[in-house]
């Protein structure tokens, strides 16, 4: 800090005293909009000035004539000759260059700067690009339009990443800033139509101002605001999206016919006998129940054959799809107004979304926003904004994945409705033949009806999100501005789940507890069971900041520094109420203390007690400084430093103040005389280095315990370990080096930027296998790992044709490669490296997610057994192949599970009011593991794979298939070996058509009688699917959990 002050003071000393002051203002021709970041250069003197937000600039000018060269992106350059001293205000009007690129202003959350004056690496998503897709939320529009941003969907929720991985076990999601502060609420609360632009801060110079939270990159969402001296603008926007039915491709199983035959076989082997006799009365599939009835003489063999033949004709996916899915749609309406006088600017937005999913779930969101900026005096400006989001949702019919039994999947022939459309019971927790005989008619129907169950257990949620912001800025002295910014956010989420008396959950619980001893008593009373949850998030942010900007002859200095406090508090409570009468809302209290005999097993059970209170507080205290100095508009040096402290456990002692910093430089080489060439009219080089952090509250340095419940017997609270003492635990650090170049040709019609980066993540907390004799489980977290990522981002924008047909293309490409530099790897056991796609591999020199497989020697021609290798010899000894003695050296390494090359190509064509845009995305250079047949889970949990029909059945089949033969009893290591062998590895490469949009603009210029400025009609199709893929299994490597559904949207927009 001291250094900066010194530097500042030195610079102030340089100011020359003899010159005359020239004051001027640059505005846009026609609209009189003040123009910021316009460069005014005096040719002979080689001095220049830049306009501020109000379009104002000042010069120190000697007497005499001067030639001013005025240039700005998006405007035609102008030359003006004036004589100094100049009386009054010099007003310069610039004519927009319609076909040129617009100037890009990037927002870091702390300041807004012209991209071409920043040393850092930013990606900027313009409003037009952002709006090419139509969606309810903000984040889903970013993939494919933002270079360096990718989504890893190997987990159900998926995670957004900026420039790949920076952490191993910690949270990977980038920091999301809404205007000035991190947004703590649910990001889906934000209406995308209120978003102006999105900026992605990629390197250290861009992101390290955010300190210990910026390690994963930062996404800054800038919402719309009014501006001074602007006519009132009204925008009305309405969209309807129609969404295709989900295809359920993620459910992959054997066919009904195959499964019935298999069950017949297993039945003949006595496989189901112990299940039949189990005291837990676990359910058996309909076919097995039929076979039992036939065996016991309750039905004839003929009846059995007829019924089994019928089951064979069924298909669970079709059955489900036909009875559960209805047309899904999303509706979106919004109106916005904005305008501004000379002292005030304002913006009003209101939006309403209404969605209905294929399962009939409702979602609605109402957004309101007011934003006002008032210039009280020349020095004092006050801004107030208020954002309101009200979100309600209600669940719909039972989702496919939630229809489960207590011992595996549903059989592939499951039916959900009968011929008349009445709901049918499916297997669930107990054998129906058992529960139907229990209780002598005193129990409620114990069957599970998926068709109606979802409706009978509605869960609703109501959320209210308030975000208010007060901004105060005061110009202390010329160039020195103090700003104070306070933001308050409160998000209330009230959710409840009502298990109606007709829901399976309630009936099951009531029945289990029913006591029949002469009289019938029900410890769980008749009536609905209701879970209520209230969660309140309160965030207070306060920031004080000093900005200093000054322009000397050749030097432009801009420094900001300040401090901020942030406190995010979450409180929650939940409760369960039993025996609710839905009409009177009276409830009955239950006995959670004493045990009851389960009517099924006779063992002691307790009525679930779920009342809980939670409290979470995260506090941050930070100071920061950031500055840039520019010489002659050509050379820029920048630096930033930040210290963070937080109350996160453990971190308190070992890393209370964690300093993070960055430095950067840029050089406009095309302005150097010795490099001036026609071939490269604009070229700028950037170089930055710095570090940011990654903190994870889950990892603490002490043994921590968490209180999780009440011991039913002692009635005392009990606690379990949530973290084991590890005194050496530190925050993770991410160091990024970035070398970039920005180039432009042909009057800016073609622009390109290239960035090469090296990102080293140090002190990463990694799971480390540990001898469990230690008593703390099988893995322990240590600051043991280091990874590095190298990458190359390229972005090219071009205006291909510029006549009546305007055709623009934007192309980007990211090369990415990560590797493990250091990892505490104590186990070289092969089984740790083959497990699925989603395990971190600790092999130094190889990618973080590396795909390995057991070596595959094909199927045994005699019996269809899969074959691997033991000590180089072909072997079927699966226990050894997959056992503890097999090491990584026995495996084949394929490559990374993360794409090496990703990117997108977007095209936009405009002709006579028509516009067409489409975007193609691609991912190359990676591998994934498909699911294969697992006979153990097929037999025990009814979970197979459609490749069962391609299994080896007779000698010769091994020529055409790699699917092992079915054997009984199954050998789980044989299944493991096959599933983790080379036979199930596929290349992930694919090309996808992300979206197409076609629109027509009726503009006032074209249609004179139009009472609007313009009306736009658009049709947009999203998620159109894969154009090309490398695998032949028709798998979507990008969506292993559930494929995205095609969406068709119609959009109508009026601008007044």
């Amino acid at each position, binding site marked *: 800090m001291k250094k900066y*002050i010194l530097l*500042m*003071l030195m610079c*102030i*000393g340089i100011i020359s005293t003899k010159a005359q002051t020239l004051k001027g203002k640059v505005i846009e021709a026609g609209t009189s909009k003040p123009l910021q970041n316009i460069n005014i250069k005096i040719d002979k003197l080689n001095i220049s000035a830049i306009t501020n937000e109000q379009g104002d600039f000042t010069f120190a000018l000697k007497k005499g004539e001067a030639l001013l060269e005025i240039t700005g992106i998006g405007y035609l350059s102008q030359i003006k000759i004036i004589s100094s001293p100049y009386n009054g205000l010099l007003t310069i009007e610039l004519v927009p260059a319609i076909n040129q690129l617009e100037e890009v202003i990037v927002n870091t959350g702390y300041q807004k700067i012209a991209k071409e004056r920043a040393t850092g690496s930013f990606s900027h998503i313009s409003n037009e690009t952002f709006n090419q897709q139509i969606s309810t939320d903000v984040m889903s529009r970013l993939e494919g339009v933002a270079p360096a941003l990718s989504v890893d969907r190997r987990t159900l929720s998926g995670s957004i990443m900026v420039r790949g991985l920076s952490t191993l076990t910690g949270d990977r999601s980038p920091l999301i800033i809404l205007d000035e502060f991190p947004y703590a609420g649910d990001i889906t609360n934000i209406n995308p139509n209120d978003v102006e632009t999105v900026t992605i801060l990629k390197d250290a110079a861009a992101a390290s101002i955010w300190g210990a939270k910026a390690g994963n990159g930062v996404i800054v969402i800038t919402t719309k605001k009014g501006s001074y001296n602007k006519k009132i603008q009204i925008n009305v926007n309405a969209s309807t999206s129609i969404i295709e039915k989900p295809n359920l491709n993620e459910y992959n199983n054997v066919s009904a016919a195959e499964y019935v035959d298999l069950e017949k076989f297993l039945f003949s*082997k*006595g*496989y189901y*006998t112990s299940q039949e006799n*189990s005291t837990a009365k676990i359910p058996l599939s309909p076919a097995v129940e039929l076979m039992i009835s036939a065996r016991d003489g309750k039905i004839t063999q003929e009846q059995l054959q007829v019924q089994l033949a019928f089951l064979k004709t069924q298909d669970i996916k079709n059955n489900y799809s036909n009875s559960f899915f209805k047309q899904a749609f999303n509706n979106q309406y919004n109106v916005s107004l904005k305008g501004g006088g000379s002292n005030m600017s304002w913006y009003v937005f209101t939006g309403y979304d209404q969605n209905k999913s294929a399962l009939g779930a409702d979602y609605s969101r109402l957004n309101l926003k007011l934003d006002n900026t008032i210039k009280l005096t020349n020095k004092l400006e006050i801004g107030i904004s208020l954002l309101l989001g009200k979100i309600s949702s209600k669940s719909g019919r039972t989702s496919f994945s939630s229809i489960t039994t207590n011992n595996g999947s549903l059989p592939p022939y499951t039916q959900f409705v009968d011929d008349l459309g009445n709901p049918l019971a499916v297997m669930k927790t107990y054998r129906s033949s058992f529960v139907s005989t229990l209780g002598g008619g005193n129990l409620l129907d114990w069957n599970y009806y998926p068709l109606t169950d979802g409706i009978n257990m509605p869960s609703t949620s109501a959320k209210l999100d308030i975000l208010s912001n007060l901004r105060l800025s005061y110009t*202390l*002295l010329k160039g*020195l501005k103090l700003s104070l910014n306070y933001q308050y956010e409160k998000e209330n989420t009230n959710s409840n789940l009502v298990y109606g008396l007709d829901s399976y959950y309630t009936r099951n619980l009531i029945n289990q507890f029913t006591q029949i001893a002469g009289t019938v008593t029900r410890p769980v009373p008749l009536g609905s069971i209701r879970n209520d949850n209230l969660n309140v998030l309160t965030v207070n942010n306060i920031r004080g900041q000093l900005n200093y900007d000054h322009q000397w002859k050749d030097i432009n200095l801009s420094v900001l520094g300040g*401090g901020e*406090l942030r*406190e995010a508090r979450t409180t929650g409570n939940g409760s369960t109420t039993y025996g609710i009468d839905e009409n009177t809302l009276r409830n009955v209290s239950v006995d959670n203390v004493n*045990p009851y005999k389960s009517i099924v*097993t*006779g*063992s*002691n059970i307790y009525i679930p007690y779920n009342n809980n*209170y*939670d*409290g979470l*507080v*995260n*506090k941050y*205290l930070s*100071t920061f400084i950031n500055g840039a100095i520019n010489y002659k508009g050509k050379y820029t040096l920048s630096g930033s430093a930040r210290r963070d*402290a937080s*109350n*996160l456990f453990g971190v308190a002692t070992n890393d209370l103040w964690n300093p993070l910093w960055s430095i950067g430089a840029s050089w406009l080489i095309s302005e150097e005389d010795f490099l001036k060439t026609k071939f490269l009219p604009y070229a700028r080089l950037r170089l930055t280095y710095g570090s940011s952090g990654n903190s994870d*509250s889950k990892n603490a340095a002490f*043994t*921590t*315990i*968490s209180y*999780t419940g009440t*011991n039913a*017997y*002692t009635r*005392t609270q*009990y*606690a*379990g370990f949530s973290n*084991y*003492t590890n005194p050496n635990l530190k925050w993770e650090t991410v160091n990024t080096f970035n070398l970039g170049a920005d180039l432009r040709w042909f009057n800016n019609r073609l622009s390109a930027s290239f960035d090469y980066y090296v990102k080293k993540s140090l002190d990463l907390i990694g799971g480390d296998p*540990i*001898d*469990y*004799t*230690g008593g703390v*489980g*099988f893995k322990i977290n240590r600051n043991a790992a280091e990874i590095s990522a190298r990458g190359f981002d390229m972005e090219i924008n071009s205006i291909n044709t510029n006549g009546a047909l305007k055709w623009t293309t934007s192309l980007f490409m990211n090369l990415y490669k990560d590797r493990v530099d250091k990892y505490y790897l104590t*186990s070289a056991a092969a089984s740790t490296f083959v497990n699925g796609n989603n395990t971190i591999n600790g092999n130094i020199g190889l990618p973080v997610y590396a795909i390995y497989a057991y070596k595959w020697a094909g199927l045994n021609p005699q019996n269809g057994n899969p074959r691997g290798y033991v000590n180089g010899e072909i072997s079927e000894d699966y*226990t050894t192949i997959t*056992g*503890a003695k097999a090491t990584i050296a026995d495996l084949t390494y394929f490559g990374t599970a993360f794409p090496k090359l990703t990117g997108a190509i977007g095209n936009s064509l405009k002709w006579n009011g028509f516009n067409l845009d489409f975007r193609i995305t691609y991912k190359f250079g990676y591998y994934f593991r498909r699911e294969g047949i697992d006979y153990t889970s097929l037999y*025990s949990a009814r979970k197979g794979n459609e490749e069962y029909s391609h299994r080896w059945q007779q000698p010769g089949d091994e020529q055409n298939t790699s699917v092992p033969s079915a054997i009984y009893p199954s050998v*789980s290591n044989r299944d493991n070996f096959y599933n983790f062998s080379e036979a199930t590895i596929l290349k992930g490469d694919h090309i996808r058509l992300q979206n197409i949009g076609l629109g027509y603009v009726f503009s006032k210029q074209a249609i004179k009688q139009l009472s609007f400025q313009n009306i736009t009609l658009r049709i947009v199709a999203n998620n159109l699917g894969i154009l090309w893929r490398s695998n032949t299994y028709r798998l979507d490597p990008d969506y292993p959990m559930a494929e995205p559904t095609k969406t068709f949207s119609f959009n109508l927009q009026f601008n007044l």
Partner: protein
Amino acid sequence: MKTYFKYVSLVLFVGTLCCFSCKKFLDEKPDASLAVPTTLKDFQALLDQNAQINENDPSSGEVSAGEYYVTDADFLARTETDQRIYTWQNDNVLPALENDWAYCYRLVYRANTILNDIDKIEVNSLNALTKQDIKGQAFYHRAKAFLQAVVIWAPVYHQVNSNTDLGVPLRLNINFNEISVRATVKENYNQIVNDIKKAIRLLPEIPLHVVRPSKPAAYGLLSRTYLLMGDFENAKLYADSCLAIKSNLLDYNTLNATSSFPITQFNPEVIIASRMFGLPIIGASRAKIILELYNSYDVKDLRKTIYFKDNANGTFSFKGSYDGSSLYFSGIATDEIYLNRAECNARLGKIPTALSDLNALLKKRYKTGTYIDYNLTDQKAVLELILKERRKQLLMRGLRWGDIKRLNREGAGINLTRIINGKTYYLPANSARFALPIPEDVIALSGMPQNKY
């Protein structure tokens, strides 16, 4: 220029001031339910997590002992590790990671966490008893875990050989980075005895609930330990001490034999309640009690109907768990202590005293009025009788494996056989295989020597 400096320094000054006063701001803990375990309440809470403390006792011993069998079909439907442990294979008998070894040492770590820090708490008149109680509980649980482990993975205690025989690692601190080393069997038993003796001094006579250790529970555990060591004098002594505090016997005539689990959880005999986390192969739906054992019960013996469910196909399942469920009780109950004392007295030549304990117990196991007191004088016959009754009373309680080992040490010659698919598997008396193979992943990570066969 001066004005600049003034403003800048003012802001800096205010900023610094703010930071200092904000030290307190950062002191709040991030999660209200998180705590660094430092208080007695925290320690007790760790020991009250019943699912981790009392519901995870190892079952490998009972699985390997010969009191039950499974049908060929059920055997084939089981996982390979289950099949291997059932047939006494020499390796890969337990699933990786989540297994009995982990259960034992998880409990050890928890006890160590408390023993490591509890003495940092200052004692005052209000908390002295609570602190003693908690410390005693921790010693008890550590001893219990070590004892269960040594019975499963080490050879039987032997006066001489145990000085060199490899036992199980003794982890006595919370440093999980420490490399595991196998202590000798002697060291194991010394540690167990010392821990229990400490627990005895600290624990209350009557616990808040029988899920918590108490003085009688510690006496009982020590009696069990000495019996395994063949120290009958001490085993008798501590059985005495235990029964002096708690000697209730449950009259089986009051039970309803037709209910699915006639004996209730926490019945009056239970001194400390815990149960096994059984491997699936021993699950109640699969395990059939061997007929030899079932047939040894007299028709007047209530246990014949209370303990066994007739599957109506010539097979019998066990339903007499003191857990009141299909899960196997592995805690300590007075019936075991009566039998310990009876056996010790018989071995020490005190025949009438031995028989009086046996008669007192059996009287409550037979239909009222049908039991005739045994009145034998021959020491060998009495001992045989007591051992036979011990087996009949304490089946499926996790005790048989240790009993077979110690009885074979004294020459009982108990060989085990199992037949699957016509193939006979055989475990001869005193085989080294009576110490199970330590999980291979533990051996691989720690470099400890494996049991040799």
